[in-house]
């Protein structure tokens, strides 16, 4: 298994002239980190696996037209997770936006505390502190301004403090 690259390398590789990585190469490189990202965004490993697989299937259909495959895949995963969260919100009678499964006794409370956040706050926090993306790139993925990202991150952290202080 190819060791996942960090985000800065992904963007640089996408922009490199003559980039010709095949779909299979990219799948092997990106699949695992994308499942991890989706897991962080949805709280469910099973759902994350399914969502990422669907993203790759859709991407495979028009792979030759994808200019920056790494960035494209990541944005597609974030969008797929947002759609899944919306579906979960509609389908659930409670207020949970987050699908938490396999909660273990030793599970870190910080991870589970994410479940209390609205999706955009959660995504902003995950992309900034787990994916370590610059806010400009997060703004592009979430389709908002950088100032909005900063606000989402600030409000998300404030909410997290409340949850873990309870």
């Amino acid at each position: 298994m190819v060791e996942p690259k960090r985000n800065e390398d992904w963007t640089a590789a996408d922009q490199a002239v003559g980039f010709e990585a095949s779909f299979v190469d990219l799948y092997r490189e990106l699949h695992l980190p994308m499942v991890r990202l989706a897991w962080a965004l949805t709280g469910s490993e099973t759902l994350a696996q399914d969502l990422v697989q669907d993203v790759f299937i859709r991407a495979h259909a028009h792979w030759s037209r994808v200019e920056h495959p790494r960035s494209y895949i990541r944005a597609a995963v974030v969008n797929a997770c947002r759609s899944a969260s919306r579906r979960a919100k509609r389908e659930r009678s409670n207020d949970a936006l987050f699908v938490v499964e396999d909660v273990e006794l030793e599970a870190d409370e910080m991870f589970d505390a994410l479940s209390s956040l609205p999706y955009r706050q959660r995504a902003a926090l995950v992309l900034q502190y787990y994916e370590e993306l610059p806010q400009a790139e997060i703004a592009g993925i979430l389709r908002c301004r950088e100032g909005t990202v900063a606000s989402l991150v600030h409000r998300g952290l404030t909410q997290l403090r409340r949850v873990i202080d309870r």
Partner: protein
Amino acid sequence: MTSDDELGARLGRSIDTRVRRVRPRDGLEDLLARSEERRRRQRRRFAVGATIAVVVVAVGAFLIGGATSDGDGDTTAVVIPRSPDVADIYAPGDLARAGVEIADAYRDVFGPAPDGTKAAAMQLGADLLPLLHRSSEIAQRFGYTKDQLTRNVVTVSDPAFIDATHAIVHFSITIPDHGTIVKDRVGYAVQHDGRWQVAARTVCDLVWPGTTSPACPAKTPA
């Protein structure tokens, strides 16, 4: 209280600790198989869509002329006399006049004419008029120009009378510099309140594949 950066770093580590447990699932074969199936479905949908589009274009193309023009001087309606050896037991008394009126009705409906004239020239005209407009819009989306489609020529031939108020004709529609888009097609005419009209059935049969109207198909008379 921890700073935002400290809390964020702690969150990042927490997420990393949890998601590192992910169980690798080699789904490449499954992915490629599902992707190929998806492509096959898309190709099937494209084939069906293309077939419908061709029908819609053909039908819409000749209807647009009538639905978008107020003039009536460019369209030619030609009546070709029916064979004299065909007996029409229930034919109307004035065959020549009836044939001309039917041809006029086809010209008004499928050629350029005001909406009121079109509605009066077809059975269930008020109900079917939106259908003509819709076909016109579709044809324009497929690239036919108003000028191109308002010069169509409607040819009506071989009227045969089922009875005193119902007739069968053959008709063709040709667009100059484009070709014959409807060739020798069977159409129907009905006489209502003393006036010959294009049967709703004929209009619906032509435009039904791409458009809908409350008058089609349930209210389409034979």
